[in-house]
């Protein structure tokens, strides 16, 4: 092999590596975007549950600024319970999802573990915390989480997050190692 051939071979390898890194970086961003979408969706659902409660009927404010919950009728109480349970069950997961999504966008590989933990929590709650028949919103959540689990564990994504190689420099020019 001549020196020229060696040189061209080397540049091909460099090109391939860069291409692979660019592809893996794109995958990381896609995962990040999907996680943020999921987190925002959960937050939106929470806002919806809390938004449909008639707070004027639920709360009575005294003169000293203290809030008291008065006795309320059953439909309102159900709505309150549903909103409270939703916040308890999904708020931590939503925060984790947003954190993971944002960290993916700036390429912190540790986000992978946070993302999988959030998926676990959501699935755990949807499958076991709600009695059968489950509320309608749990089914799309289960479906989305299952697909995200498959995507997060796909060989390409795992390689992008767990490779020892540093990904190609992003637009911000920073590369973060876990």
């Amino acid at each position, binding site marked *: 092999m001549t020196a020229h051939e060696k040189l061209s071979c080397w540049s091909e390898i460099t090109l391939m590596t860069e291409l692979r890194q660019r592809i893996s970086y794109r995958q990381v961003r896609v995962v990040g975007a999907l996680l943020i979408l999921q987190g925002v969706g959960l937050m939106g659902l929470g806002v919806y549950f809390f938004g449909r409660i008639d707070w004027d009927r639920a709360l009575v404010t005294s003169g000293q600024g203290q809030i008291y919950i008065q006795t309320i009728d059953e439909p309102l109480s159900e709505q309150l319970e549903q909103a409270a349970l939703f916040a308890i069950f999904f708020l931590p997961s939503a925060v984790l999802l947003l954190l993971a999504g944002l960290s993916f966008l700036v390429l912190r590989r540790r986000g992978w573990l946070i993302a999988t*933990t959030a998926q*676990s929590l959501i699935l755990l709650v949807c499958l076991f915390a709600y009695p059968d028949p*489950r509320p309608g919103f749990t*089914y799309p959540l*289960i479906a989305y989480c299952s697909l995200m689990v498959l995507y997060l564990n*796909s060989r390409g994504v*795992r390689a992008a997050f767990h490779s020892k190689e540093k990904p190609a420099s992003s637009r911000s020019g920073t590369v973060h190692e876990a």
Partner: protein
Amino acid sequence: MRHEHPVDATNSAALLRSFEPVLRFTKGEWFYPMDVEPYVRSCSLWVQHPDEEAVCVVPQGKLTLETLGQQPLDSADAVHYLKIPAPEKSRRRGLWARLFPRHAAGGPDWPKETFRAGRGRLARVGYVSRLADALFSLALLLRGRVPGRGVEGARVMYGGLMEKEEHYQYHGRVVRQDGWIVLQYWLFYSFNDWRSNFFGANDHEADWEKVFVYLSESESGEILPEWVAYAAHEEAGDRLRRRWDDPELEKIDEHPVVYVCAGSHASRYFRGEYLTELEFPLPRSFARARKAVRLFWYRTLRQYAEKDPSELFTIPFVDYGRGDGLSVGPDQDREWDPPRLMEDPVPSWVSGYRGLWGLYTRDPFEGEDAPSGPMYDRDKTVSREWYDPVGWAGLDKVPTRAEELADILEQRSEIEERRDGLRAEILQKSRDLKRLGIAAEATRGRSHLRELHEAQRGRIAELSREVRGLREELSTEGVLSEALDDHANRLRNGERPPANAHIARAARPLPESEARTGRVAQLWASISVAVVLLTLTGILFYQRQHLLFALVFAIAVLAFVEAGFRKRLDKFMISANIGLSVVGAFVLLDRYFWQIIVLSVLAVGLYILWENLRELGR
């Protein structure tokens, strides 16, 4: 028995002493290699007939090596065994005796050093293995086992002997087999206290271990050590042996160094702590199903998967081969006494006594039964180590260095002879084939010669196959001949294959990093099984209305903690996710079965349409 010719005793003793091993023990070891004579003198001989009470046939103090081989009251199913005398009953009882049995029992001040376990074995394995370990311990209550006082009896007996005068001795035998001179160092310990004192798998009275050194003799009569094999548990074959010039084989002058594991007396090549696993194969149907699921997961779904896990279920035990205790051997802390020879003729205590060398507990797995002597297995058949020491270490396929080159040249000349024969045969058959071809051309298309033509075609096909086979054989033989030639040249140049090329999976001590886990992790490992059981019981009693959720949540939390301690959070999370996703998929299927079917069909239809339209657009 194969080619066995014991060399004369004077030479045997000298040979044995030239290569005798250096044994390095773990601090806190109770029992060291000893001569069988004082042991036998201290024991009584018993015989067990089926469905009968065991009978003492020679009481303690009356037994000698000469009388041992007589085996009185022998019958088809009789089991003879020796029994170490029980220690005298302690004057101190109650809590004191339970906490400090050694001091309570009195007797000799032995051993001199105390063992410290360090990081427990349970911290090195997962829940399932810990649970299996608990079941294994429970099973010991049902199986036959050496009673707790057994080890104490052995301590008093052995400690008494060592207090009078310390002796360290092996039993030697020299065998010639297949060009090898095998030096057999048989090490006898009065007790295997692996379970009692070192958290191991078993205890048994008496323990026979061995180290073999394999020598070759050149035509000029020069004797060279070539291989060494250390016995460890029931292992056999290639992995036992190491080449003499292997840089990993530790030697002091011409004496191989053996790291003896505490209690089990397994012999190891490296200093350290070994994870010895009791292996239980998974049921075949279960293993097949798991393999199918893994294939679907990895190939069809293109998912990430760890390399194929073991097909065995294991319970781990730690073998402590630290080498930080007493060292026995030439120029060491203690020197060997002259060996007791077991040859010319083979003494009656070796060949005549087919019984066990310690208590017969009737353990169905035999782990707690004492071993039989060097010549026999427990079933009274002659042991392989005795009649085929070369094959036992997988050396039956390896020539000595002196024979190696001559063997290659002989093989090469045989191959060349075969190749000449093949060439001649090919020439003849090729000629026949061509003639047949011409004849078949001549008979083609003639109706009255149709049958002849068919027969010719059949014969052509057959002959063609034969010639092809012969050419293939010729080519293979040629390649083999070249490879042998290369190998011979390398040997002539003094090159040798890698010293550890024959070892597929060497037993190595656990890495240092595994021993650095903190005390909290160890504590967790010790209490985790109990915590799991208590938590599950608590949920069953107090959370029946939310049973499923509480159970799943509790198991998930405990498993999460466990995975964190074992630095396997990634693996745990993905396993949990996959499990939950599978359940989720079933829930979705159950709820939206027809919708999913319709959507799937629609998706397939759209995909086909898209593909066809793309083709049209090109």
